[in-house]
């Protein structure tokens, strides 16, 4: 193959094609697709958020008040599926699409058409998934983990659920193959692996995890499908199978999945904290190795989701110790972020505030995770609100906060305008206070024995549930402010400079704000 390159379409070089549909439907531009991904994530954040509001409204007071219990179960299940596959993952993938090429000096992603396909598969999957809400028998209601035999009692929605998971899986696999290929093949000369921004590193490892475990989920739900319609016995003890086997296969996917939801957040925070501390990141290479270690450990800890299901003692011990090991590389990261801030000349713009809150609140979620890792005490915590509190601390104040931090951090680069700093701070403080009012009491509820996925509860849980619901409503409403700030920033505002932030380092800050439609058509040299 010759080394020459020809692309003679000048219209393609200088700006987006004319025409709304031609631009947004057929686009292979990483910035367009990044925007589409992020807007889709934002939309699903509100769809899933609306479901959360239903949950918190029902739990505001004891008793069956607003919705029927079956619908409540549909809400808990769909809330999880929508937030994971529709909210957090697309938002991170959108950030990856927009940022990775400009951070490594590439003109675009390695496989731009695959990129387009991967994005448009998402609405396809969600058409199927959300349509189940209107079907006889209702939407999936047995929990997002889809455990058999309960999930097999689902009505007409069952095959729609399975195929939606397949389509969303294909979407994330294709998106991730593209990300890995981009990072390994499209770096500018001089951009060695160990010079890459940590966001790129985090996504390289995340994408590897996605390519490794999404097919396993596809296999698991395929077995559910054949058990339901073709008489197979994978999860049926009468045929020599085992319903617990589903849980093993599911969590072999599921545990790496939760790190898929947090590793990009580590990358984002590792970009923001050094900027506003005006110091280089402390321990760059240890950050890389810690991320890789977390990814490796994620493959051998799935059993900690199943301590109460029944498992040989040796298995319990193995999964317990392996899980506790995860705290070591995670601790490395936390201390590195703290050391980066140490004696820095810090300022506290909105992205920095969200990042500091991330470090603090994610650590709370991480520590409750260590508590849950202990097999003997997990027998008490399992399936209680303690678990709900734990994973919402890592997912909301972890993943979602990092996404918000990233939006504020890079929004000037995307739009060319500074966002409204005052409103941003309002958004931060309202979110941070309300999210703690929302989730912190759930620790106490869980320790006191309140089970999760229950529409009604005993009277002694009333106060904490009411407090939690009030926090939830405030947190939900506050996010409307987030949308307003984004719209306001897109429409205008103070012009952003190329560098945007005083302490910003990296290739994306050498580009004008807003960055042109095509960047780095010839490779920059990285020293």
């Amino acid at each position, binding site marked *: 193959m010759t080394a020459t390159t020809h692309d003679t379409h000048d219209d393609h070089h200088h700006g987006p094609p004319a025409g709304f549909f031609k631009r947004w439907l057929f686009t292979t531009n990483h910035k367009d697709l990044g925007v589409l991904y992020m807007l889709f994530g934002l939309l699903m954040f509100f769809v899933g958020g609306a479901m959360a509001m239903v949950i918190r409204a029902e739990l505001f007071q004891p008793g069956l008040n607003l919705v029927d219990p079956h619908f409540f179960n549909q809400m808990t299940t769909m809330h999880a599926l929508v937030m994971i596959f529709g909210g957090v993952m697309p938002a991170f993938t959108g950030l990856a699409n927009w940022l990775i090429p400009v951070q490594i000096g590439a003109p675009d992603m390695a496989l731009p058409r695959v990129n387009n396909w991967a994005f448009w598969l998402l609405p396809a999957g969600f058409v199927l998934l959300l349509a189940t809400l209107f079907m006889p028998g209702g939407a999936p209601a047995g929990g997002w983990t889809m455990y058999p035999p309960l999930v097999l009692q689902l009505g007409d929605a069952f*095959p729609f659920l399975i195929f939606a998971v397949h389509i969303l899986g294909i979407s994330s696999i294709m998106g991730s193959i593209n990300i890995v290929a981009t990072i390994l093949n499209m770096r500018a000369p001089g951009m060695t692996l160990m010079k890459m921004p940590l966001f790129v590193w985090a996504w390289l490892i995340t994408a590897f995890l996605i390519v490794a475990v999404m097919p396993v989920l596809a296999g698991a739900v395929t077995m559910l499908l054949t058990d339901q319609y073709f008489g197979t016995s994978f999860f049926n003890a009468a045929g020599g199978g085992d319903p617990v086997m589903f849980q093993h296969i599911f969590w072999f996917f599921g545990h790496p999945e939760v790190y898929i939801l947090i590793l990009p957040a580590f990358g984002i925070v590792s970009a923001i904290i050094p900027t506003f501390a005006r110091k280089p990141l402390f321990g760059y290479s240890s950050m890389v190795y810690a991320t890789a270690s977390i990814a490796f450990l994620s493959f051998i800890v799935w059993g900690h989701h199943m301590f109460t299901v029944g498992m040989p003692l040796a298995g319990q011990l193995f999964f317990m110790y392996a899980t506790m090991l995860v705290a070591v590389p995670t601790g490395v990261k936390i201390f590195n972020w703290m050391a980066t801030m140490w004696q820095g000349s810090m300022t506290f713009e909105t992205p920095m505030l969200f990042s500091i809150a991330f470090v603090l609140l994610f650590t709370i979620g991480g520590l409750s995770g260590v508590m849950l890792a202990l097999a003997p005490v997990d027998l008490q915590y399992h399936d209680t609100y303690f678990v709900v509190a734990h994973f919402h601390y890592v997912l909301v104040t972890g993943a979602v906060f990092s996404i918000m931090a990233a939006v504020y951090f890079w929004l000037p680069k995307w739009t060319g305008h500074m966002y409204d700093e005052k409103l941003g701070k309002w958004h931060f403080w309202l979110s941070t206070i309300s999210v703690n009012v929302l989730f912190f009491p759930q620790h106490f509820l869980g320790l006191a024995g309140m089970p999760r996925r229950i529409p009604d509860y005993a009277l002694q849980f009333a106060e904490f549930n009411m407090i939690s619901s009030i926090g939830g409503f405030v947190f939900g409403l506050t996010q409307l402010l987030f949308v307003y700030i984004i719209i306001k920033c897109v429409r205008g505002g103070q012009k952003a400079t190329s560098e945007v932030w005083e302490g910003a380092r990296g290739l994306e800050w050498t580009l004008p704000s807003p960055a*042109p439609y095509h960047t780095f058509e010839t490779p920059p040299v990285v020293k």
Partner: protein
Amino acid sequence: MPGHRSPPIRNQGDIRMSTQSKDAYFVPEDSRWPVFGIPGIVLLAIGLSVYLNGGSSGMPMIVIGALIIVIMTVMWFRDVIVESVTGKYNAQVDVSFRQGMAWFIFSEVMFFGAFFGALFYARVFSIPWLSGGDPETSRFLWESVTLAWPTAGPGFLDLDYTVMGAWGLPAINTMILLTSGVTLTIAHHAMKHNDRKKVIWGLAATVGLGFLFLSIQMYEYVYAYQELNLRMDTGIYGSLFYLLTGFHGVHVFLGALTLLVVLLRVMRGHFTAENHFGFEAAAWYWHFVDVVWLGLFIFVYVI
């Protein structure tokens, strides 16, 4: 194009927009085909769901959806082939394609991993536990049953079926697939030496052996259903047997189809001794399918 990473093209520090230069990156044009396929995928999924729920309108949706997906695939690849043979791609694009294919095959390996995992779990854990290895399980479910792989499970002890033997047709099929790997490698070497006639024969033999494998597999299924009473609902053994060999068969079909397209492209002279990644990608896939079969043959048929 050898498999190693080609050195990146150097350009001295110019990050301004340049129009055309030899050193520019290649960025493909936008394309309507990925989006064109999306309604097909939605239609196929809805059609399958309606069909499985017993609705009568499922089948037409499946057919139309599948048709749209086929059109998408053909047209998308057509664009790529045109761009490739008109020399638009540079060495970096080639590496991107290689990376894409390699990671795609890795994801396929993990997909099969789920089913092999189920096989090992059933054999190592669930069946021994059900037959007394775990006292609680056997006390509450089926007391004092003795199960040994291959089994249809404790609920189907009176089921009369025969296990598929390894050393008849399956062994022949193993030889067929292994031979197809050899013929494919012969074709690859011929490709590198510009011996087009030999490439065509090697590829034709590979595709032929692939379809022969599939025919024998189909015959084996009919035989299993009619003579052995070995069915998909024959407990965990039947489940694993049909899903593992079935998904493998689908992959053989897709691999053979891809090789067939490659064969047609060879006949049209699309490839050169240096530049034939389309061929290599199909070959990688074929070897992957071969390796999966070896695992299958050992763990499903022999042991």
